[in-house]
């Protein structure tokens, strides 16, 4: 579409404003992690790496990161297995109630987190009689992580169709060989993208985690939450936030690459 010079200027300004609104606060977090002032006097008078060194030796942070990674991995693996199986069932087979099942599978991501949290906590504590632990957190996370895996995989399955698998069978490959050589490789990008998203979801989850974790289990977001209001911990929290900003670029970049791969594969 052709725009007038004035139209383009206005659009560019609007875009700049939008981006600034998102990224300036993040930039402040990163800058503040070097701010020598403990109360974040702005603008910073002098810079220091003291807070970064403190974080490196902070056992609370280290344990929280470890817990988050453990929960994230278990939730992701569970979600990948279940989400993929569900996607196959719903994409490749027709059965009574298929439509209802596909709605029910996606629903957890639309439900308010607090409702999921409440429901799972009640389920664990009352009629399942399971003691809350790091596992209950992981399983709870898997309920909504599964949705993103499922969505990725079913989109890929619908786009690739079944002719590649038919061609494989036609050329003499049995079911397992076809899965190993054709179905799985075609699905790999979608699985990875789904797994990355699932891990990301689990990693910054806070509401469900709060209500399904026992007192001893602290994930990183919960650790941040707990230390946010303590003035002497503020600089350390700030450093953790800065690290998370930088780290989140990695999965984003990877999933973009994988998404691009998805598009070219879908073109055939």
């Amino acid at each position, binding site marked *: 579409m052709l725009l007038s010079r004035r139209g383009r200027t206005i659009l560019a300004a609007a875009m700049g404003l939008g981006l600034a609104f998102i990224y300036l606060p993040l930039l402040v977090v990163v800058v503040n992690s070097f701010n020598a002032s403990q109360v974040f006097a702005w603008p910073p008078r002098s810079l220091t790496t003291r807070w970064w060194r403190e974080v490196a030796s902070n056992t609370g942070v280290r344990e929280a990161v470890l817990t988050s990674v453990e929960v994230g991995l278990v939730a992701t693996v569970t979600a990948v297995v279940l989400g993929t199986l569900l996607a196959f069932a719903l994409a490749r087979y027709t059965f009574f109630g298929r439509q209802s099942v596909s709605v029910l599978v996606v629903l957890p991501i639309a439900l308010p987190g607090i409702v999921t949290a409440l429901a799972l906590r009640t389920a664990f504590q009352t009629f399942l009689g399971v003691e809350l632990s790091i596992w209950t957190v992981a399983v709870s996370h898997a309920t909504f992580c599964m949705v993103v895996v499922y969505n990725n995989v079913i989109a890929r399955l619908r786009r690739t169709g079944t002719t590649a698998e*038919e061609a494989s069978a036609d050329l003499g490959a*049995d079911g397992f060989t076809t899965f190993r050589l054709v179905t799985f490789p075609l699905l790999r990008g979608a699985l990875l993208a789904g797994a990355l998203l699932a891990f990301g979801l689990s990693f910054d989850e806070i509401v469900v985690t709060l209500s399904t974790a026992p007192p001893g289990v602290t994930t990183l977001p919960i650790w941040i939450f707990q230390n946010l209001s303590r003035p002497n911990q503020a600089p350390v929290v700030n450093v953790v936030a800065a690290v998370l900003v930088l780290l989140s670029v990695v999965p984003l970049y990877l999933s973009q690459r994988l998404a691009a791969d998805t598009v070219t594969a879908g073109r055939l």
Partner: protein
Amino acid sequence: MGTEPVTMRWDPQLSGPRAGRRLYGALVSTQPQPDVDAARPAIRLRGLRKRFGTGPQAVDAVAGVDLDVRDGEFLTLLGPSGSGKTTVLRLIAGFELATAGTIELGGVDVTRRAPFERDVNTVFQDYALFPHMSVTDNVGYGLRVRKVGRAERASRTQEALDGVRLGHLGDRRPAQLSGGQRQRVALARALVNRPRVLLLDEPLGALDLKLREQMQVELKAIQRQVGITFVFVTHDQEEALTMSDRIAVFDGGRIEQLGSAADVYERPATPFVAGFVGTSNLLSGAAAEQVLGRSGTWSVRPEKIRLDLDDEPAAEAHDRSATGVVREVVYVGSATRFVVDLDAGASLVALQQNVQTSSSDVDAYRGRRVRLHWDPRHEVQVADPATAPTAH
């Protein structure tokens, strides 16, 4: 015998320099000679039925097909979309399970066997190449899953690729190829297994006209040289007439007529065949009585009819003739189609070569009174489904 290369004869006009000759030669030379019983058909279909859906929405895509495909022949399944021709092909390949009836390949009942247990290979309409594999890996796939040794696999793959003149593109991905090249890869991938039967599901549908015509000639040449039975599905009647030894014309899940190109074109058995293969120039009822002096439904092909202005000298005595008015003139380059409303009531299409006429000349015929005449030998009686099937 065995694996010694055989020198093939190859029409150099068909394709580029020596490349083609080597390929097909390679394919032919390695073709094993199984215990082919000449009397035994390559494919035998008996009472084949396929129903999709259940209850009131059920559709009989294939409604009782009996067919013998001879060993080494090029058989085309021709019909409009939804006529069941592709479903028959998918039943033979094993992608669909027959609702009733049997499928025999080389005398062995394979009705209940999985696709990978049948000695047929398929060229798919959309090629169905594996996007994550190189061209070489695509072509070698069938050998790989059948546990053919690495060295033999490499040489047979290369032969097959050379055969379709893509030997230099083995490292490419399918996405980096043109439509025509993908088509060739699909063909090489299917032929490298040396199947008893090759099934082709509208393989030329996605190609432009020029490439399509070139591939028609080439496919036919490959088939003649590798000696494999080809079952080819198309909705394009010209394609069917060009390539086939025999044509099975499909409609409504049944075979309307089975015969050579000449049979189907010149002696259509039913009005549907007359209409689908070529232009349906039908005379029936009162018009037939008046023009031909006999009853029933008759077909005359447009190119058999000559057209003169009414005031020009009368036709030869033994010619059939009818007068009428030109309703429509369609200039198609090399020829012109005249749609003539006969005084007797029906309308006929006459195709005239533009030997000396040009588009402006033929336009002047519109609305003029003309006389059509043809040799009565070109009148073919077609069975009317309403009446008894009285055709030959």
